[in-house]
């Protein structure tokens, strides 16, 4: 881009790849990582179980799993695969690394972050987002006609990882720490939705909808406030 008037460009002017290249990005990623997908799904199920029956050790395990996933996606997907065809990703990958460090830091603190045990609207939304990222988001690619070869798996690709993290941070306490860990996943989901919309891909609204759900959960009035 030039040094002036960059704000006058349309999203389509900033798009660097075609739909076929974007689709092949995930196909090649999956091909290169096989058989990591079943392992990632199994770890995702473990994380979901922790969300359903949270405890201090389980929460730390969950945060560490997320931290490893953010670091892995930063390196293996954004840096190795996406950045060569989109120079902007060279700037995004370190931010994913930062998110990994923050998650790891909180995961090692004794009172870093805790998850609610009692059912509430925020908890329901949070678990729903995580379950969607784990179980349903991989079906978006085949539903859009790109086949299972292009499936986006939690822990291996950015969108489901960001949505799952939004789910955890939608219900985590204390709020200030949760907000800090919610910011980057939310920004990623918004840019991903914009990219998919510009590419003309169906389902572009899913990631931004996850952001809206996470924000609604965080802003949901606490029971005391309702009284």
């Amino acid at each position, binding site marked *: 881009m*030039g040094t002036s008037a960059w704000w006058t460009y349309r999203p*389509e002017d900033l798009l660097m790849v*075609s739909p076929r290249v974007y689709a*092949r990005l995930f196909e090649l990623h999956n091909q290169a990582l096989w058989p990591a*997908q079943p392992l990632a799904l199994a770890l995702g199920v473990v994380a979901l179980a922790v969300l359903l029956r949270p405890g201090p050790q389980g929460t730390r395990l969950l945060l560490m799993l997320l931290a490893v996933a953010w670091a892995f996606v930063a390196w293996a997907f954004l840096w190795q695969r996406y950045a060569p*065809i989109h120079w902007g990703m060279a700037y995004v990958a370190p931010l994913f690394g930062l998110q990994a460090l923050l998650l790891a830091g909180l995961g090692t603190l004794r009172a870093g972050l805790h998850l609610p045990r009692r059912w509430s609207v925020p908890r329901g939304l949070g678990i729903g987002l995580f379950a969607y990222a784990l179980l349903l988001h991989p079906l978006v690619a085949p539903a859009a006609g790109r*086949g*299972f070869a292009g499936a986006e798996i939690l822990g291996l690709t950015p969108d489901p990882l960001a949505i799952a993290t939004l789910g955890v941070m939608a219900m985590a306490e204390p709020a200030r720490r949760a907000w800090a860990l919610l910011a980057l996943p939310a920004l990623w989901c918004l840019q991903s939705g914009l990219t998919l919309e510009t590419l003309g891909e169906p389902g572009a609204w899913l990631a931004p909808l996850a952001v809206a759900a996470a924000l609604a959960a965080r802003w949901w009035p606490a029971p005391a406030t309702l009284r």
Partner: protein
Amino acid sequence: MALPHPPRLPLSRRRLLRGLFAAAAASALPGAGALAQSAEPLTRTLPGTDVALPRVGLGSWITFNVGDDPLLLEACTAVMAAFFAAGGRLIDSSPMYGTSQATIGHALKRLEAVERVYAADKVWTSSRDEGPAQIEASRQAWGVPRFDLLQVHNLRGWEGHLETLQAMQAAGEVRHLGITTSHGRRHDEVEHIMRRVPLDSVQLTYNIVDREAEQRLLPLARERGIGVIANRPFQRKRLIRRLAGTPLPPWAAEIGAESWAQFILKFIISHPAITCAIPATTRVEHVRENLAAAREPLPDEAMRRRMAEHVRGL
């Protein structure tokens, strides 16, 4: 749930290679020289040089940014094979275009077309000091001994880079130099540079609806003897999508336009200041269609006005 292995590929490698080699073979058949001669696209000489360029070139923004995907590299190679087979020469790229330069280099090597191509690339960095290293990296990606045309991308750091390019030109390390802009932006600055600095080429956005350049820049280019490369001829598909579904006017046959793409390209390249247009495509049939637009008959001034009015009214 079924898991993603092995991937289902949307394109058949065999089909791609068949297209690639068919296109390449078409220009290598005995006697193909005479055939190619009759099918050669119209050319226009880059002002002040002896270089005659086909009036339709090939852009690479987005379309050739395919990473190291072997399947898509072959698809792009097939596009370039068809481009050369149809008489094309100028290919334009930039270090900003992801892996497009490497894709072009891959295809040039596969097609043994380094001698055939008119290699147009850009320098894209705000740092003057980084310019030479970037240009050298671009040259290596293309696999050409030197660039035919180097342009300052979107005027970024233009003063320093033009000095670098002038020194390279004096040393025979590049044949021609220029500047680029797009989307109709910074035309005042482009005009300033065109008046102040000796340029061989300016690249700007010009098509049947984006015609601001007609006011000052295109007349100035003729006056100063500067070639003009028209980018975004189809507004990156938007124009074609807008016109899709609308039939061509019957009088399009008078200029030999068989599609909206040819209609638009013929409008662009018939402007007396335009050296060539550089549509980008991922499809072999489109590259052939584009090159076929660079043939007689081309519209005269009255017809050009009629064409623009017609599109404005749709």
